[in-house]
């Protein structure tokens, strides 16, 4: 992605990666639901792709805004807000998913 600092790419990856010390088994997430489009893992990975797209769109419009080629300033405002809210939403979903996972792992068998 053009012009994005390494620190920003790390932050975006951290938005969806679990914190260190937790290694959820991939079988737990994919589970018996398999490749069904309703499974939680596909929903989560869909959200990650969408987040990347939204971020890229906002970055592209930012470049247009500073070089004076952007026709409507509100386009960039809206895209930037969408990107920010998407990041926050994705992080919130990740946190909730990990909470749920930890809850399940603590259940006595």
């Amino acid at each position, binding site marked *: 992605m053009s012009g994005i600092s390494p620190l920003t790419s790390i932050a975006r990856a951290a938005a969806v990666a679990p914190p260190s010390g937790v290694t959820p088994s991939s079988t737990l997430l994919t589970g018996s639901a398999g490749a069904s489009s309703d499974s939680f893992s596909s929903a989560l990975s869909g959200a990650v792709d969408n987040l990347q797209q939204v971020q890229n769109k906002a970055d592209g419009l930012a470049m247009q*805004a500073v070089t*004076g*080629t*952007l*026709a*409507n*300033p*509100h386009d960039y*405002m*809206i895209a*930037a*807000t969408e990107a*920010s809210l998407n990041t926050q939403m994705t992080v919130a979903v990740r946190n909730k998913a990990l909470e749920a996972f930890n809850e399940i792992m603590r259940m006595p068998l």
Partner: protein
Amino acid sequence: MGAFDILAISGSGVNLNRTWLDSISDNIANINTVRPTSEAAYQARYVEAQAVSPDAAQPGGVAVTGISLGSAEGRLTYQPDNPMADAQGMVRMPDVDLSEQMSQLIMAQRGYQANLSVVQRATDAYNAALQIGKG
């Protein structure tokens, strides 16, 4: 196509009206400028404006295409005591009508204020757009 084109478009309107005001004040200042019949009279200034269609390079508006001059003949007036009078006592007065110039002055002033008001409103709108997503 820039982000804040309204400012450029109204800016061209402001410049046009300012040029018009300058010409009118020039005409009114010279309304009694006498010239001998051997020379041309003071010629009134008229601003020629043309609409500019918007395209990829510029957002449009209006442009001053030139300043045309009024009649060089002027009005021949009988002023035998005037040092510039010729053998028949005639001098040239400019062909400028004060009441016409005053009404044009009012039109130019209104045009100037109207364009500035567009600029003000557009700036307010843009500032509001810049607040999207804050807080």
